[in-house]
């Protein structure tokens, strides 16, 4: 029983790590305050769920979830490339709401508020990841690969280009960098990984509805990124483990589930405020927004 619960927690942590390190890529490294991050999760989850239910093999649905989310990342990067700070935050938030409204209202495709039940567990080369333990292994492998790719990217010279844009975009342009292209790449790669995280989420929970992809779901991810410290991948991973586990304590203390939902949000929002006030660089970060 405890063991099953532990596996469940680890799967959640894996999915959150992908979500958080991809937000780090956009926000911590490139300085793009993307409040539309969760929209890509929804796009990935719905893409993968619908394709799998239409009979497509898991791995194709999984990759397309990433690619279609990446495509939307590209679309978002074009009109927003001149926006900064508050304005970028508001525009990306608007994007998030538009995606949510479409998921909710395009009922022919998404079944609207009813959601999509019965999403199949993934299977690969005849092996089905239907047990939680096997799903955990799948999640761990994908999380590790995502981490390695993002790590490689941010430690390469290209990562420094992204950081130069975060610190001073105009100065980056004056030394010849095409910052429009670099920002677009950062957003596309970030969206790709959120998309595959969405696919994992959909096939793990096996049910999705639009309410899982509202802006409120961004709070824990944003919190993880800020607690871990902007532009710190290791800090982000530690923060994910700690912050995803903490509210689970509430469950053990014996709160009813109607209390756990809001209590979790309250806890996250409070920690976020305290961190912003008392430790704005997070625990492992060096960068201040």
């Amino acid at each position, binding site marked *: 029983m405890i063991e099953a619960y532990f596996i469940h927690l680890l799967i959640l942590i894996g999915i959150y790590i992908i979500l958080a390190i991809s937000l780090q890529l956009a926000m911590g490294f490139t300085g793009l305050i993307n409040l539309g991050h969760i929209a890509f999760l929804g796009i990935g989850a719905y893409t993968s769920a619908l394709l799998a239910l239409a009979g497509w093999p898991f791995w194709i649905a999984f990759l397309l979830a990433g690619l279609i989310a990446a495509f939307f990342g590209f679309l978002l990067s074009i009109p927003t490339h001149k926006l900064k700070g508050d304005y970028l935050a508001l525009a990306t938030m608007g994007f998030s709401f538009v995606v949510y409204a479409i998921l909710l209202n395009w009922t022919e495709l998404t079944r609207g508020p009813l959601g999509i039940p019965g999403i199949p567990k993934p299977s690969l080369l005849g092996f089905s990841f239907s047990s939680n333990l096997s799903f955990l292994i799948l999640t761990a492998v994908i999380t590790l690969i995502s981490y390695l790719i993002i790590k490689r*990217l941010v430690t390469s010279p290209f990562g420094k280009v992204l950081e130069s844009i975060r610190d001073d975009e105009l100065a980056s*342009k*004056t030394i010849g960098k095409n910052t429009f292209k670099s920002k677009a790449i950062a957003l596309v790669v970030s969206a790709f990984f959120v998309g595959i995280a969405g696919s994992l989420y959909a096939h793990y929970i096996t049910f999705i509805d639009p309410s899982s992809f509202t802006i409120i779901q961004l709070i824990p991810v944003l919190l993880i990124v800020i607690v871990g410290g902007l532009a710190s991948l290791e800090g982000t991973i530690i923060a994910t483990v700690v912050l995803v586990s903490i509210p689970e304590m509430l469950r053990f203390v014996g709160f009813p589930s109607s209390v756990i939902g809001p209590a979790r949000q309250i806890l996250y929002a409070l920690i976020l405020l305290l961190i912003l006030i008392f430790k704005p660089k997070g625990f492992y970060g060096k960068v201040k927004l």
Partner: protein
Amino acid sequence: MLQISNLKKHFGGIKAVNNVSFEIQENKITALIGPNGSGKTTVFNLISGILKADSGRIIFNKEEITNKKVNEISNLGVSRLFQQARLFNNLTVKENLLLAINNEDTKFWKNLINYKFTDEDYKKINKIAEVVGIESFMNKQAGDLSFGQKRLVEIARAIINPHKLLILDEPVAGVNPKLRKEILLLLKKLKEKGEAILLIEHDMNFTLNIADNVIVMDEGKVIAEGNPKQIKNNKNVLEAYLGE
């Protein structure tokens, strides 16, 4: 190598740059001077593409660069130093300099697969760091440097950025006299190496000491042009400065 003709830029009713024409030659230091608000920095912003010109043309090495993008102009060979500090504060001095070397670092797939700076790249930045005198703090965060140190790093970054023309906006403003002298010597050294430099400077002594050619602006217009000696004795220039 740089020809500016009939350049105009208005902000609302203010004619910041009003029909400005001048030319810059290779292997020379040209100084752009004038009282505050005379439009010098606006001219710089037009050359480097930060602002769009209302009318007029800017030709660089026989190519029209009017209204090209900032990064395109930089890549055609115009390297700019800003008046305010514009370093990448969360990166080290070394990283600041490496970024300026070339644009291989913006190639996504190449970087993802395997791209590292070469020994040659490091040699290049170390050499310039030595010339500018910043080698002792190459591994410090740019944001932690003093004002003078930042200035030097920015000058080094502008020199490393591949260019045919350096445009420097007040390279010695706010810098102590000792460092001022060092920068003066450095610019002379660069000129001997065949660099073309266009600079804005308020310090008249500094300017007249270093420039081969001086262009004076006032209220958005060029009011005088000539060698330092001619400028010193020009009536219009004296009026513009005294009337300030």
